[in-house]
């Protein structure tokens, strides 16, 4: 018949289990933090690149201009100064050329 485990050993085992549990919890927090930092770091690189010619501005400046959805332009714009009447010898603006 196996001898009964003394109470002191059971207490030690509980402490070991609690320690492992806390260790796992800490490891989980650290891992989450590491992944978070990595994700944030990745985002920053992408964001920084977007100020140049890639990244978030691709769809506007560097990517596909898909003209069958929401492509629109700001319209036609007037000249800074309106034309004025002139009597000087001209060049010609004409149609159908």
């Amino acid at each position: 018949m196996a001898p009964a485990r003394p109470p002191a050993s059971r207490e030690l085992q509980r402490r070991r289990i609690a320690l492992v549990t806390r260790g796992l919890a800490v490891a989980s927090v650290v891992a989450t933090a590491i992944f978070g930092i990595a994700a944030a770091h990745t985002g920053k690189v992408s964001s920084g690149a977007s100020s140049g010619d890639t990244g978030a501005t691709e769809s506007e400046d560097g990517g596909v201009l898909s003209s069958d959805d929401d492509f629109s332009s700001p319209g036609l714009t007037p000249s800074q100064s309106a034309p004025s009447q002139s009597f000087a010898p001209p060049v010609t603006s004409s149609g159908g050329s």
Partner: protein
Amino acid sequence: MGAPSASFQGIGVTNRIVVDSAGALGEALEIAREEVDALDRACSRFRDDSELAALNRASGSDVQVGPLLLAVVEAALRVASATRGLVDPTVGPALGALGYDRDFRLVAGTTPSTLRLVPAAGWRRVHVDRRRGTVRIPAGAALDLGATAKAFSADRIAARVRAATGANVLASLGGDVAVGGAPHGGWPVAVTDDHRRLSPGPTVAIADGGLATSSTAVRRWRAGGLELHHIVDPATGRPAEEHWRTVTVAASTCVDANAAATAAIVMGAAAPEWLEGMGLAARLVRPDGSVARTSGWPAEAS
């Protein structure tokens, strides 16, 4: 004494460069010739060896194009959007069906007995991938960049000459005018239906941007027993109703001026209000010769 200027033929029209410094004329002319030649090789609908011809032959597929054609296609799509599709680069087959499928000097000598109407495929179906440098047009469609390409080139010439020489410059490609700086009082420009036959019209001075005229009075031919002109309504494939014979617009660029003038012809009666709403200075001539103007256009001496 007039400002130093030089003219040359190219892309089927007379092109002219004017500067306010005699020393700048040689370089200005060289730049203008280079740009017109590049435009012809990239964007001509009438050259089998042009980039545009290759793109049209490969409709339905992504096609690698050079930076100039890519830029002009993008400009044409912007124009189509800004004019609500009244100026649509996919009118190529519509013009071809009407008989305008080659240099106009050859078209004018023919009188096809039949007439087909082909509405434009629609600019919204054109895809541009700027990063890859590709354009895809719908299968069976074809681009005609004539309305925009010439004005685009005029803007480029004016900007390049101004940057290279420091001189004030006016570039005119068949009457589509772009300005890069101006002498005191602006550049005087005569407005008329046909730049080869100076018909009565006002002279206005412009100091910046561009000025362009669209007209149904020239580039006319007969087909199917009807007299046709080259400004096509993309929605129908038919030459636009002639509510206006000629429309001239001043704008921030020659591209915008050309777009507004052509769209106004297609739009018809509502055009003055549309142009006024955008603050564009414009002069519109009815078939009977009577004139309407937006508020930005100067009164004409009687």
